[in-house]
């Protein structure tokens, strides 16, 4: 049986993920990236912070993002994802060069 993994901080204000799609969604909702763990360049783990981060993660997985109205815009999410992918690819390339 898989051991439960804790991706939330103890106070519930920080959340870690390596999924660029989910991270850009959370950024779009107002969460800020506060930490980047590049130990494994193929799986960079980003830690995001927001007072409502647990609520945001729940809304993403419950299909209730509509309650945040116009904050969540597809073009803005796409732009944030592009920036994120650019950073991820840069880290991967640098790691390959070493």
């Amino acid at each position, binding site marked *: 049986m*898989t051991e*439960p*993994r*804790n*991706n*939330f901080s*103890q106070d*519930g204000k920080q959340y870690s993920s390596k*999924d660029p*799609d*989910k991270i850009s*969604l959370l950024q779009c909702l107002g969460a800020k990236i506060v930490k980047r763990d590049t130990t494994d360049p193929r799986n960079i783990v980003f830690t995001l912070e927001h007072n409502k981060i*647990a*609520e945001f*993660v*729940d809304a*993403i*997985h*419950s*299909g*209730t*993002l*509509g309650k945040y109205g116009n904050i*969540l815009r*597809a*073009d803005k*999410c*796409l732009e944030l*994802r*592009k920036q994120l*992918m650019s950073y991820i690819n840069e880290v991967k390339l640098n790691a390959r060069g070493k």
Partner: protein
Amino acid sequence: MYSEKNIVFAGATTVFAGMLLGWTRDPLTIGQEDDKVKIDDVQQKIGVVDVRRTKVNFIVKLNLYEFTLENIQKAFGINANVVQGAASKTLSLNLSGDYPEGELLILCKGPNNVLRTIRFYKAKLTDRGDTSLDAYGATVIPVTFQVLVHPDYDDLGSIEEEYVPSSVVID
């Protein structure tokens, strides 16, 4: 021959080719459609089984909220405009054209609040319902994707589950 099984218990958020498509509060359906051939139809009957599967289609069906038509238009690079009618919006699709294929990501929940991420490496929009449905006081559009085998992975996709710690209450 058609069988389907609903494997998602709650709503979901959908991302296609990096573009946020929309979300649904309805359970979505992941189904399997088999094309079978009866050996009786073949003159030279060889083998012990009389029905053989020749093709398997994996499909994903979900209802997206109407305003995501603009997102579908962008994600699929559709030239047609979203037409605003008196009571609904319409986006015309000509499925004979080449539509981009991309990674389909479904962020949803499983039993016991498990956060589930279903990733299909390669999917294609195959059908959009002609009529919109009213659900939860909002208009939603039925959308169907066909899941294809990605040549690099030789696989359809993956499912990741993330356990929510009991210290975090997210109800």
